[in-house]
Protein backbone atom coordinates (compact mmCIF):
# COMPACT_ATOMS: atom_id res chain seq x y z
CA UNK A 1 0.00 0.00 0.00
CA UNK A 2 2.79 2.43 0.88
CA UNK A 3 4.45 1.68 -2.48
CA UNK A 4 1.18 2.41 -4.25
CA UNK A 5 0.91 5.76 -2.45
CA UNK A 6 4.52 6.64 -3.31
CA UNK A 7 3.95 5.77 -6.98
CA UNK A 8 0.71 7.70 -7.01
CA UNK A 9 2.29 10.83 -5.52
CA UNK A 10 5.22 10.54 -7.94
CA UNK A 11 2.71 10.18 -10.78
CA UNK A 12 0.84 13.23 -9.56
CA UNK A 13 4.11 15.19 -9.52
CA UNK A 14 4.84 14.10 -13.09
CA UNK A 15 1.27 15.04 -14.02
CA UNK A 16 2.00 18.49 -12.65
CA UNK A 17 5.02 18.82 -14.94
CA UNK A 18 3.03 17.62 -17.95
CA UNK A 19 0.27 20.06 -17.12
CA UNK A 20 2.68 22.99 -16.88
CA UNK A 21 4.18 22.15 -20.26
CA UNK A 22 0.93 21.16 -21.98
CA UNK A 23 -1.42 23.94 -20.81
CA UNK A 24 0.44 26.57 -22.83
CA UNK A 25 0.50 24.29 -25.88
CA UNK A 26 -3.21 23.67 -25.56
CA UNK A 27 -4.16 27.36 -25.26
CA UNK A 28 -1.80 28.35 -28.09
CA UNK A 29 -3.30 25.75 -30.41
CA UNK A 30 -6.84 26.46 -29.27
CA UNK A 31 -6.58 30.21 -29.83
CA UNK A 32 -4.17 30.52 -32.73
CA UNK A 33 -4.07 27.05 -34.28
CA UNK A 34 -0.30 27.09 -33.95
CA UNK A 35 1.57 23.87 -33.18
CA UNK A 36 4.46 25.30 -31.21
CA UNK A 37 7.12 22.61 -31.46
CA UNK A 38 9.64 24.95 -29.78
CA UNK A 39 7.60 24.96 -26.58
CA UNK A 40 9.78 22.26 -25.00
CA UNK A 41 12.78 24.56 -25.29
CA UNK A 42 11.01 27.03 -22.96
CA UNK A 43 10.82 24.21 -20.39
CA UNK A 44 14.61 23.84 -20.81
CA UNK A 45 15.10 27.59 -20.61
CA UNK A 46 13.26 27.62 -17.27
CA UNK A 47 15.44 24.81 -15.94
CA UNK A 48 18.70 26.51 -16.97
CA UNK A 49 17.55 29.89 -15.63
CA UNK A 50 16.77 28.29 -12.26
CA UNK A 51 20.12 26.48 -12.30
CA UNK A 52 21.96 29.75 -12.99
CA UNK A 53 20.17 31.55 -10.16
CA UNK A 54 20.82 28.71 -7.70
CA UNK A 55 24.45 28.52 -8.79
CA UNK A 56 25.33 32.23 -9.02
CA UNK A 57 23.12 34.06 -6.54
CA UNK A 58 25.45 33.39 -3.64
CA UNK A 59 24.43 36.64 -1.98
CA UNK A 60 21.24 34.88 -0.87
CA UNK A 61 22.46 32.30 1.65
CA UNK A 62 19.18 30.58 2.41
CA UNK A 63 18.76 27.90 -0.33
CA UNK A 64 14.99 27.83 0.18
CA UNK A 65 14.70 31.55 -0.50
CA UNK A 66 17.12 31.21 -3.40
CA UNK A 67 14.89 28.51 -4.91
CA UNK A 68 11.84 30.75 -4.62
CA UNK A 69 13.80 33.52 -6.39
CA UNK A 70 14.97 31.01 -9.03
CA UNK A 71 11.38 29.94 -9.65
CA UNK A 72 10.18 33.54 -9.99
CA UNK A 73 13.07 34.56 -12.27
CA UNK A 74 12.52 31.48 -14.46
CA UNK A 75 8.81 32.32 -14.68
CA UNK A 76 9.61 35.91 -15.72
CA UNK A 77 12.19 34.76 -18.30
CA UNK A 78 9.71 32.21 -19.71
CA UNK A 79 7.00 34.90 -19.87
CA UNK A 80 9.31 37.24 -21.78
CA UNK A 81 10.67 34.53 -24.08
CA UNK A 82 7.16 33.30 -24.97
CA UNK A 83 6.01 36.83 -25.76
CA UNK A 84 9.09 37.62 -27.86
CA UNK A 85 8.73 34.31 -29.73
CA UNK A 86 5.19 35.24 -30.77
CA UNK A 87 5.93 38.88 -31.59
CA UNK A 88 9.18 38.33 -33.46
CA UNK A 89 8.59 35.03 -35.25
CA UNK A 90 5.21 33.31 -35.02
CA UNK A 91 3.08 36.40 -35.77
CA UNK A 92 4.27 36.46 -39.37
CA UNK A 93 3.16 32.88 -39.93
CA UNK A 94 -0.46 32.71 -38.78
CA UNK A 95 -2.47 30.49 -41.09
CA UNK A 96 0.68 28.97 -42.62
CA UNK A 97 0.83 25.61 -40.87
CA UNK A 98 3.79 24.12 -42.73
CA UNK A 99 5.89 27.26 -42.20
CA UNK A 100 4.96 27.25 -38.50
CA UNK A 101 6.07 23.63 -38.10
CA UNK A 102 9.35 24.27 -39.93
CA UNK A 103 10.06 27.41 -37.91
CA UNK A 104 9.21 25.97 -34.50
CA UNK A 105 11.05 22.68 -35.13
CA UNK A 106 14.09 24.68 -36.23
CA UNK A 107 13.83 27.04 -33.28
CA UNK A 108 13.49 24.13 -30.85
CA UNK A 109 16.57 22.42 -32.27
CA UNK A 110 18.55 25.67 -32.30
CA UNK A 111 17.73 26.38 -28.65
CA UNK A 112 18.69 22.84 -27.61
CA UNK A 113 22.02 23.30 -29.46
CA UNK A 114 22.46 26.70 -27.80
CA UNK A 115 21.90 25.20 -24.32
CA UNK A 116 24.36 22.40 -25.16
CA UNK A 117 26.93 24.88 -26.44
CA UNK A 118 26.64 27.07 -23.35
CA UNK A 119 26.36 24.46 -20.60
CA UNK A 120 27.29 21.12 -22.14
CA UNK A 121 25.14 18.05 -22.75
CA UNK A 122 25.57 16.39 -19.34
CA UNK A 123 22.82 17.07 -16.83
CA UNK A 124 23.50 19.97 -14.48
CA UNK A 125 22.27 19.22 -10.97
CA UNK A 126 20.31 21.98 -9.34
CA UNK A 127 21.51 23.03 -5.90
CA UNK A 128 18.48 22.20 -3.76
CA UNK A 129 17.40 23.14 -0.24
CA UNK A 130 17.97 20.27 2.21
CA UNK A 131 14.21 20.11 2.91
CA UNK A 132 13.64 18.84 -0.64
CA UNK A 133 15.51 15.63 0.13
CA UNK A 134 13.68 14.99 3.38
CA UNK A 135 10.50 12.95 3.53
CA UNK A 136 6.95 13.46 4.75
CA UNK A 137 4.87 10.51 5.90
CA UNK A 138 1.62 10.24 3.95
CA UNK A 139 -0.59 7.28 5.00
CA UNK A 140 2.52 5.41 6.02
CA UNK A 141 4.42 6.12 2.79
CA UNK A 142 7.66 8.14 2.87
CA UNK A 143 7.14 10.82 0.24
CA UNK A 144 10.10 13.03 -0.75
CA UNK A 145 9.20 16.65 -0.06
CA UNK A 146 10.31 17.63 -3.57
CA UNK A 147 7.42 15.57 -5.00
CA UNK A 148 4.95 17.33 -2.72
CA UNK A 149 6.39 20.71 -3.66
CA UNK A 150 6.04 19.98 -7.39
CA UNK A 151 2.47 18.91 -6.80
CA UNK A 152 1.68 22.06 -4.81
CA UNK A 153 3.23 24.44 -7.37
CA UNK A 154 1.45 22.66 -10.23
CA UNK A 155 -1.88 22.87 -8.37
CA UNK A 156 -1.30 26.55 -7.61
CA UNK A 157 -0.47 27.18 -11.29
CA UNK A 158 -3.63 25.32 -12.36
CA UNK A 159 -5.73 27.35 -9.93
CA UNK A 160 -4.06 30.58 -10.98
CA UNK A 161 -4.61 29.84 -14.66
CA UNK A 162 -8.28 29.02 -14.06
CA UNK A 163 -8.72 32.24 -12.07
CA UNK A 164 -6.98 34.22 -14.80
CA UNK A 165 -9.21 32.74 -17.50
CA UNK A 166 -12.38 33.01 -15.41
CA UNK A 167 -12.05 36.31 -13.62
CA UNK A 168 -10.12 38.67 -15.89
CA UNK A 169 -11.09 40.44 -19.12
CA UNK A 170 -7.97 39.01 -20.80
CA UNK A 171 -9.13 35.54 -19.77
CA UNK A 172 -12.60 36.22 -21.15
CA UNK A 173 -11.11 37.35 -24.47
CA UNK A 174 -8.92 34.24 -24.61
CA UNK A 175 -11.82 31.88 -23.89
CA UNK A 176 -13.95 33.59 -26.53
CA UNK A 177 -11.02 33.73 -28.97
CA UNK A 178 -10.48 29.97 -28.67
CA UNK A 179 -14.09 29.59 -29.93
CA UNK A 180 -14.24 32.26 -32.62
CA UNK A 181 -11.42 34.82 -33.00
CA UNK A 182 -13.10 36.66 -35.89
CA UNK A 183 -16.23 37.35 -33.87
CA UNK A 184 -14.03 38.68 -31.04
CA UNK A 185 -12.41 41.04 -33.56
CA UNK A 186 -15.83 42.11 -34.83
CA UNK A 187 -16.69 43.17 -31.27
CA UNK A 188 -13.82 45.68 -31.42
CA UNK A 189 -11.24 43.63 -29.51
CA UNK A 190 -7.62 43.43 -30.60
CA UNK A 191 -7.34 39.66 -30.30
CA UNK A 192 -3.73 39.74 -31.53
CA UNK A 193 -2.72 41.24 -28.16
CA UNK A 194 -4.20 38.17 -26.52
CA UNK A 195 -2.13 35.96 -28.85
CA UNK A 196 1.05 37.49 -27.42
CA UNK A 197 -0.27 37.16 -23.87
CA UNK A 198 -1.14 33.50 -24.36
CA UNK A 199 2.33 32.76 -25.71
CA UNK A 200 3.84 34.64 -22.76
CA UNK A 201 1.69 32.84 -20.16
CA UNK A 202 2.40 29.52 -21.89
CA UNK A 203 6.13 30.30 -21.78
CA UNK A 204 5.89 31.18 -18.10
CA UNK A 205 4.13 27.93 -17.20
CA UNK A 206 6.63 25.91 -19.24
CA UNK A 207 9.54 27.66 -17.50
CA UNK A 208 8.02 26.95 -14.07
CA UNK A 209 7.70 23.35 -15.25
CA UNK A 210 11.37 23.39 -16.30
CA UNK A 211 12.46 24.58 -12.85
CA UNK A 212 10.46 21.84 -11.15
CA UNK A 213 11.56 19.35 -13.81
CA UNK A 214 15.18 20.03 -12.92
CA UNK A 215 14.27 18.92 -9.37
CA UNK A 216 12.10 15.96 -10.44
CA UNK A 217 14.62 14.55 -12.93
CA UNK A 218 17.64 15.39 -10.73
CA UNK A 219 19.17 17.78 -13.21
CA UNK A 220 18.64 19.76 -16.36
CA UNK A 221 20.01 18.80 -19.76
CA UNK A 222 19.50 20.54 -23.13
CA UNK A 223 16.90 18.14 -24.57
CA UNK A 224 14.91 17.53 -21.36
CA UNK A 225 12.04 19.80 -22.38
CA UNK A 226 11.98 18.60 -25.96
CA UNK A 227 11.82 15.00 -24.73
CA UNK A 228 8.83 15.81 -22.55
CA UNK A 229 7.10 17.64 -25.42
CA UNK A 230 5.91 14.38 -26.98
CA UNK A 231 4.01 13.50 -23.80
CA UNK A 232 2.73 17.06 -23.52
CA UNK A 233 1.21 16.77 -27.01
CA UNK A 234 -0.38 13.46 -26.04
CA UNK A 235 -1.82 15.15 -22.94
CA UNK A 236 -3.26 17.97 -25.07
CA UNK A 237 -4.86 15.59 -27.57
CA UNK A 238 -6.32 13.38 -24.83
CA UNK A 239 -7.63 16.37 -22.85
CA UNK A 240 -8.94 18.34 -25.84
CA UNK A 241 -7.29 21.26 -27.62
CA UNK A 242 -7.90 24.59 -25.91
CA UNK A 243 -9.36 23.12 -22.70
CA UNK A 244 -7.36 23.85 -19.55
CA UNK A 245 -9.43 21.44 -17.45
CA UNK A 246 -9.00 18.83 -20.20
CA UNK A 247 -5.24 19.36 -20.10
CA UNK A 248 -5.22 18.77 -16.34
CA UNK A 249 -7.26 15.59 -16.77
CA UNK A 250 -5.06 14.40 -19.64
CA UNK A 251 -1.92 15.08 -17.61
CA UNK A 252 -3.26 13.00 -14.72
CA UNK A 253 -4.22 10.08 -16.98
CA UNK A 254 -0.93 10.04 -18.88
CA UNK A 255 1.35 10.41 -15.87
CA UNK A 256 -0.46 7.90 -13.64
CA UNK A 257 -0.71 5.36 -16.49
CA UNK A 258 3.04 5.69 -17.08
CA UNK A 259 3.89 5.27 -13.41
CA UNK A 260 1.58 2.34 -12.68
CA UNK A 261 2.42 0.39 -15.83
CA UNK A 262 6.16 1.00 -15.40
CA UNK A 263 6.01 -0.30 -11.85
CA UNK A 264 3.40 -3.04 -11.93
CA UNK A 265 4.00 -4.36 -15.48
CA UNK A 266 7.51 -3.66 -16.77
CA UNK A 267 9.77 -0.65 -16.85
CA UNK A 268 9.47 1.05 -20.22
CA UNK A 269 6.00 -0.30 -20.97
CA UNK A 270 4.50 2.87 -19.46
CA UNK A 271 5.24 4.88 -22.61
CA UNK A 272 3.64 2.19 -24.78
CA UNK A 273 0.57 2.17 -22.54
CA UNK A 274 0.25 5.93 -22.99
CA UNK A 275 0.20 5.52 -26.78
CA UNK A 276 -2.57 2.91 -26.40
CA UNK A 277 -4.45 5.31 -24.15
CA UNK A 278 -4.14 7.99 -26.83
CA UNK A 279 -5.42 5.63 -29.52
CA UNK A 280 -8.35 4.61 -27.31
CA UNK A 281 -9.38 8.22 -26.65
CA UNK A 282 -9.06 9.11 -30.33
CA UNK A 283 -11.31 6.21 -31.29
CA UNK A 284 -13.98 6.96 -28.68
CA UNK A 285 -13.82 10.75 -28.54
CA UNK A 286 -11.64 12.25 -31.29
CA UNK A 287 -12.03 15.81 -29.99
CA UNK A 288 -10.44 14.79 -26.67
CA UNK A 289 -12.10 14.13 -23.32
CA UNK A 290 -13.14 17.73 -22.64
CA UNK A 291 -12.58 19.17 -26.12
CA UNK A 292 -15.29 20.54 -28.37
CA UNK A 293 -16.05 19.42 -31.89
CA UNK A 294 -14.84 22.03 -34.38
CA UNK A 295 -17.79 23.76 -36.07
Amino acid at each position, binding site marked *: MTTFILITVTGLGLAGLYFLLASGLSLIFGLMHVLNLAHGALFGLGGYTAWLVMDRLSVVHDPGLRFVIALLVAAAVGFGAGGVMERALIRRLYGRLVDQVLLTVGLGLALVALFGGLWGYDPLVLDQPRWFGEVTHVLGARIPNSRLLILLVALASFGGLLLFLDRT*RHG*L*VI*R*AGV*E*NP*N*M*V*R*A*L*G*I*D*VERSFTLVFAVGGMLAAIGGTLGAVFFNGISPALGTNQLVFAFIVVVIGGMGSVAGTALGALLVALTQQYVNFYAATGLGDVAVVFLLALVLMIRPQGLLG*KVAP
Partner: protein
Amino acid sequence: MTMSMTLPDPSEPLLVYEDLNVWRGEAHVLHGVSFTVPTGRVTALLGRNGVGKTTTLLATLGLLPAGGRVSFAGTDLIGLPTHMIARLGIGYVPEDREVFSGLTVEENLRLAERQGEKPRYHLVFELFPDLALRRRQTAGTLSGGQQQMLSLARALLNPNRLLLIDEPTKGLAPIVVENLIEALSKAVGETTVVLVEQNLGVAAEVAEQAVVLDEGRVVFSGPMRQLVADSDLAGRLLGVSIR
Protein backbone atom coordinates in the same frame (compact mmCIF):
# COMPACT_ATOMS: atom_id res chain seq x y z
CA MET B 1 -4.51 73.43 -31.33
CA THR B 2 -8.16 72.53 -31.02
CA MET B 3 -9.78 69.41 -32.32
CA SER B 4 -13.35 69.28 -33.43
CA MET B 5 -15.45 66.25 -34.23
CA THR B 6 -17.61 66.55 -37.30
CA LEU B 7 -21.00 64.95 -36.96
CA PRO B 8 -22.21 63.16 -40.07
CA ASP B 9 -24.62 65.11 -42.22
CA PRO B 10 -27.92 63.15 -42.29
CA SER B 11 -28.34 64.02 -45.95
CA GLU B 12 -24.99 62.37 -46.74
CA PRO B 13 -24.73 58.57 -46.98
CA LEU B 14 -23.03 57.01 -43.95
CA LEU B 15 -21.57 54.11 -45.89
CA VAL B 16 -20.34 54.21 -49.48
CA TYR B 17 -19.23 51.22 -51.55
CA GLU B 18 -17.24 51.97 -54.68
CA ASP B 19 -16.07 49.29 -57.06
CA LEU B 20 -15.82 46.65 -54.30
CA ASN B 21 -14.16 43.45 -55.48
CA VAL B 22 -13.78 40.41 -53.26
CA TRP B 23 -12.29 37.01 -53.93
CA ARG B 24 -12.87 34.00 -51.68
CA GLY B 25 -10.06 31.64 -52.58
CA GLU B 26 -10.19 31.30 -56.36
CA ALA B 27 -13.75 32.56 -56.66
CA HIS B 28 -14.35 36.19 -57.65
CA VAL B 29 -17.48 36.81 -55.55
CA LEU B 30 -18.07 40.58 -55.79
CA HIS B 31 -17.52 42.31 -59.13
CA GLY B 32 -17.21 46.05 -58.68
CA VAL B 33 -20.11 46.52 -56.26
CA SER B 34 -21.10 50.18 -55.76
CA PHE B 35 -23.97 51.55 -53.70
CA THR B 36 -24.62 53.93 -50.83
CA VAL B 37 -26.32 53.50 -47.46
CA PRO B 38 -28.21 56.60 -46.32
CA THR B 39 -27.69 57.85 -42.76
CA GLY B 40 -30.37 56.88 -40.26
CA ARG B 41 -32.17 54.47 -42.60
CA VAL B 42 -32.51 50.72 -42.88
CA THR B 43 -31.14 49.40 -46.17
CA ALA B 44 -31.99 45.82 -47.09
CA LEU B 45 -29.36 43.90 -49.02
CA LEU B 46 -31.26 41.30 -50.99
CA GLY B 47 -30.61 38.57 -53.52
CA ARG B 48 -30.69 34.86 -54.04
CA ASN B 49 -28.37 32.50 -52.14
CA GLY B 50 -24.69 32.86 -52.94
CA VAL B 51 -24.85 36.24 -54.71
CA GLY B 52 -22.45 37.93 -52.27
CA LYS B 53 -24.62 39.51 -49.55
CA THR B 54 -22.74 38.04 -46.58
CA THR B 55 -19.46 38.58 -48.43
CA THR B 56 -20.30 42.30 -48.66
CA LEU B 57 -20.76 42.49 -44.88
CA LEU B 58 -17.60 40.49 -44.16
CA ALA B 59 -15.57 42.72 -46.50
CA THR B 60 -17.01 45.81 -44.79
CA LEU B 61 -15.69 44.49 -41.48
CA GLY B 62 -12.28 43.63 -42.90
CA LEU B 63 -12.88 39.92 -42.35
CA LEU B 64 -12.21 39.27 -46.05
CA PRO B 65 -9.53 40.95 -48.15
CA ALA B 66 -11.11 43.35 -50.61
CA GLY B 67 -10.26 45.79 -53.38
CA GLY B 68 -12.04 49.06 -54.14
CA ARG B 69 -13.34 51.50 -51.57
CA VAL B 70 -15.64 51.23 -48.56
CA SER B 71 -16.06 54.56 -46.83
CA PHE B 72 -17.75 54.87 -43.43
CA ALA B 73 -18.48 58.49 -42.41
CA GLY B 74 -15.51 59.55 -44.52
CA THR B 75 -13.09 56.91 -43.18
CA ASP B 76 -11.81 54.39 -45.71
CA LEU B 77 -12.27 50.92 -44.17
CA ILE B 78 -10.25 48.88 -46.68
CA GLY B 79 -6.99 47.78 -45.06
CA LEU B 80 -8.06 48.63 -41.50
CA PRO B 81 -7.98 45.74 -38.98
CA THR B 82 -11.41 44.43 -38.00
CA HIS B 83 -11.25 45.57 -34.37
CA MET B 84 -10.49 49.15 -35.47
CA ILE B 85 -13.41 49.07 -37.91
CA ALA B 86 -15.76 47.88 -35.13
CA ARG B 87 -14.48 50.61 -32.80
CA LEU B 88 -15.56 53.26 -35.30
CA GLY B 89 -19.08 52.38 -34.19
CA ILE B 90 -20.07 49.40 -36.29
CA GLY B 91 -22.03 46.54 -34.72
CA TYR B 92 -22.29 43.15 -36.38
CA VAL B 93 -24.93 40.44 -36.07
CA PRO B 94 -23.61 37.46 -38.03
CA GLU B 95 -25.62 35.02 -40.10
CA ASP B 96 -25.34 32.06 -37.73
CA ARG B 97 -25.52 34.13 -34.51
CA GLU B 98 -21.99 33.09 -33.54
CA VAL B 99 -22.54 33.56 -29.83
CA PHE B 100 -19.69 32.23 -27.72
CA SER B 101 -21.29 28.96 -26.74
CA GLY B 102 -18.92 28.20 -23.85
CA LEU B 103 -19.50 31.59 -22.20
CA THR B 104 -22.55 32.65 -20.22
CA VAL B 105 -25.05 35.22 -21.51
CA GLU B 106 -23.51 37.76 -19.13
CA GLU B 107 -19.97 37.00 -20.35
CA ASN B 108 -21.05 37.30 -24.00
CA LEU B 109 -22.40 40.76 -23.25
CA ARG B 110 -19.44 41.78 -21.08
CA LEU B 111 -17.14 40.91 -23.96
CA ALA B 112 -19.01 43.34 -26.19
CA GLU B 113 -18.45 46.27 -23.79
CA ARG B 114 -16.21 48.91 -25.35
CA GLN B 115 -13.72 51.06 -23.52
CA GLY B 116 -14.96 54.63 -23.11
CA GLU B 117 -18.57 53.77 -23.88
CA LYS B 118 -21.33 53.20 -21.37
CA PRO B 119 -22.88 49.78 -22.04
CA ARG B 120 -26.65 50.01 -22.55
CA TYR B 121 -27.69 47.05 -20.39
CA HIS B 122 -31.02 48.71 -19.55
CA LEU B 123 -31.87 48.83 -23.26
CA VAL B 124 -30.94 45.25 -24.13
CA PHE B 125 -32.63 43.79 -21.05
CA GLU B 126 -35.73 45.88 -21.76
CA LEU B 127 -35.82 44.59 -25.34
CA PHE B 128 -34.94 41.03 -24.43
CA PRO B 129 -36.08 40.39 -20.83
CA ASP B 130 -35.45 36.68 -21.35
CA LEU B 131 -31.72 37.39 -21.45
CA ALA B 132 -31.84 39.12 -18.08
CA LEU B 133 -33.38 35.98 -16.59
CA ARG B 134 -30.73 33.80 -18.18
CA ARG B 135 -27.61 35.84 -17.37
CA ARG B 136 -25.81 32.86 -15.85
CA GLN B 137 -26.87 30.36 -18.52
CA THR B 138 -24.24 29.10 -20.96
CA ALA B 139 -25.01 30.56 -24.39
CA GLY B 140 -24.62 27.18 -26.08
CA THR B 141 -27.64 25.87 -24.18
CA LEU B 142 -29.98 28.68 -25.36
CA SER B 143 -32.61 28.08 -28.03
CA GLY B 144 -32.05 29.44 -31.56
CA GLY B 145 -34.30 32.44 -30.89
CA GLN B 146 -32.59 33.23 -27.60
CA GLN B 147 -29.17 32.98 -29.27
CA GLN B 148 -30.35 35.43 -31.93
CA MET B 149 -31.53 37.80 -29.18
CA LEU B 150 -28.09 37.55 -27.56
CA SER B 151 -26.37 38.18 -30.88
CA LEU B 152 -28.52 41.29 -31.43
CA ALA B 153 -28.05 42.39 -27.81
CA ARG B 154 -24.27 42.26 -28.25
CA ALA B 155 -24.53 44.65 -31.19
CA LEU B 156 -27.02 46.93 -29.42
CA LEU B 157 -25.03 47.12 -26.16
CA ASN B 158 -22.95 49.98 -27.57
CA PRO B 159 -24.39 53.09 -29.21
CA ASN B 160 -23.20 52.02 -32.68
CA ARG B 161 -23.70 54.32 -35.68
CA LEU B 162 -24.05 51.42 -38.09
CA LEU B 163 -25.44 47.92 -37.64
CA LEU B 164 -24.66 45.13 -40.09
CA ILE B 165 -27.30 42.46 -39.55
CA ASP B 166 -27.10 39.21 -41.49
CA GLU B 167 -30.28 37.14 -41.81
CA PRO B 168 -31.59 37.59 -38.26
CA THR B 169 -34.69 35.52 -38.93
CA LYS B 170 -32.95 32.52 -40.50
CA GLY B 171 -34.24 29.24 -39.14
CA LEU B 172 -36.53 30.82 -36.54
CA ALA B 173 -40.20 30.04 -35.90
CA PRO B 174 -42.68 32.69 -37.20
CA ILE B 175 -43.68 33.79 -33.71
CA VAL B 176 -40.04 34.29 -32.75
CA VAL B 177 -39.44 36.22 -35.99
CA GLU B 178 -42.35 38.51 -35.17
CA ASN B 179 -41.00 39.28 -31.68
CA LEU B 180 -37.51 39.76 -33.01
CA ILE B 181 -38.57 42.19 -35.73
CA GLU B 182 -40.61 44.15 -33.21
CA ALA B 183 -37.63 44.41 -30.85
CA LEU B 184 -35.31 45.28 -33.73
CA SER B 185 -37.60 48.03 -34.99
CA LYS B 186 -37.78 49.50 -31.48
CA ALA B 187 -34.03 49.28 -30.89
CA VAL B 188 -32.77 50.60 -34.17
CA GLY B 189 -34.31 54.08 -33.88
CA GLU B 190 -32.09 56.48 -35.77
CA THR B 191 -29.27 54.00 -36.27
CA THR B 192 -28.20 53.21 -39.82
CA VAL B 193 -28.69 49.54 -40.66
CA VAL B 194 -27.63 47.24 -43.47
CA LEU B 195 -29.93 44.24 -43.24
CA VAL B 196 -29.29 41.06 -45.20
CA GLU B 197 -32.56 39.17 -45.34
CA GLN B 198 -33.94 36.30 -47.40
CA ASN B 199 -37.48 36.95 -46.25
CA LEU B 200 -38.69 39.81 -48.46
CA GLY B 201 -41.75 40.33 -46.25
CA VAL B 202 -39.54 41.00 -43.24
CA ALA B 203 -37.21 43.23 -45.26
CA ALA B 204 -40.14 45.22 -46.66
CA GLU B 205 -41.48 45.71 -43.13
CA VAL B 206 -38.34 47.31 -41.71
CA ALA B 207 -36.29 48.68 -44.64
CA GLU B 208 -36.77 51.90 -46.58
CA GLN B 209 -34.02 51.26 -49.12
CA ALA B 210 -33.18 48.10 -51.03
CA VAL B 211 -30.09 46.93 -52.85
CA VAL B 212 -30.34 43.71 -54.83
CA LEU B 213 -27.27 41.70 -55.77
CA ASP B 214 -27.05 39.10 -58.50
CA GLU B 215 -23.90 37.13 -59.26
CA GLY B 216 -21.82 39.63 -57.29
CA ARG B 217 -23.18 42.73 -59.04
CA VAL B 218 -25.73 45.36 -58.02
CA VAL B 219 -28.83 44.94 -60.17
CA PHE B 220 -31.17 47.20 -58.24
CA SER B 221 -30.69 50.09 -55.83
CA GLY B 222 -33.58 52.27 -54.77
CA PRO B 223 -36.58 52.63 -52.48
CA MET B 224 -37.93 49.40 -51.05
CA ARG B 225 -41.49 50.40 -51.93
CA GLN B 226 -40.50 50.54 -55.62
CA LEU B 227 -39.20 46.99 -55.48
CA VAL B 228 -42.22 45.71 -53.58
CA ALA B 229 -44.66 47.51 -55.88
CA ASP B 230 -43.19 45.93 -58.99
CA SER B 231 -43.85 42.22 -58.57
CA ASP B 232 -42.32 41.42 -61.98
CA LEU B 233 -39.08 43.14 -60.99
CA ALA B 234 -38.99 41.45 -57.57
CA GLY B 235 -39.78 38.09 -59.14
CA ARG B 236 -37.05 38.52 -61.74
CA LEU B 237 -34.38 39.68 -59.28
CA LEU B 238 -35.22 37.65 -56.23
CA GLY B 239 -37.10 34.66 -57.55
CA VAL B 240 -40.09 35.39 -55.30
CA SER B 241 -43.62 36.47 -56.00
CA ILE B 242 -45.17 39.29 -54.02
CA ARG B 243 -48.82 39.43 -53.25
